[in-house]
């Protein structure tokens, strides 16, 4: 079971998305979500969107394990 988090504008597209999913990479999660939530799928494919696993920025093909926390991060705007 992989836990999912969506931040910033991605959260607006992910309101009906379940909080957990079964998948082996972030890229696979993105493909699975795009089927049922095409707007979210499109937003996740934007090149500025980063993905983290357990709070570390990773590549989209990073292997996932049971209990991993995967977060999708649009460009940040702090300060």
């Amino acid at each position, binding site marked *: 079971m992989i836990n999912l988090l969506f*931040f910033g504008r991605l959260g607006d597209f992910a309101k009906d998305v379940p909080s957990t999913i079964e998948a082996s990479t972030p890229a696979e999660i993105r493909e699975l979500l795009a089927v049922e939530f095409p707007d979210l799928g499109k937003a996740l494919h934007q090149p500025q969107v980063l993905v983290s696993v357990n709070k570390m920025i990773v590549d989209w093909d990073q292997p996932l394990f049971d209990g991993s926390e995967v977060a999708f991060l649009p460009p940040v705007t702090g*300060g």
Partner: protein
Amino acid sequence: MTVRIRIQQQDFDLAEEYQLLRQTDSVVGAVVTFAGLVRDFEVSAEGHDSLANSIDSLSLQHYPGMTESLLEKIVEQANERWNLIATTVIHRVGDLAPREQIVLVGVASQHRADAFEAAQFLMDYLKTQATFWKSVSRNGEQRWIESKASDQHAARRWERAADE
């Protein structure tokens, strides 16, 4: 170096943080503080201001756990780069009204150049690297704020300087 990093909903007291920075050590000769405030209008992605776009509130979201660890790393980088005695970073989250304080960066050092440069470095990184997201409400409508090209540019100058 004395480090204080806080992410919080409640307001902060710049005066109190300044006194803590100042009193860290008897060799403190310079204290720089930066306070960021909610302006009562919106800034577009291009960085143009429009006074017509008055906002009702600003909302700040962050990624708990990840943000703190990014801020610790950023402060550690500043400490490696400059001669610092104490550093404070406070960033608020949640809903903020116009004119409220958003962020405080404070740096104490022996000499002023270190404090000024480290404070600018920390702000540039807060704007572009830390996991915060801002949205504004205007006439009941919420809109996410785009990151500004000028902020990306400001952050990149430190990479160039490191290469030299």
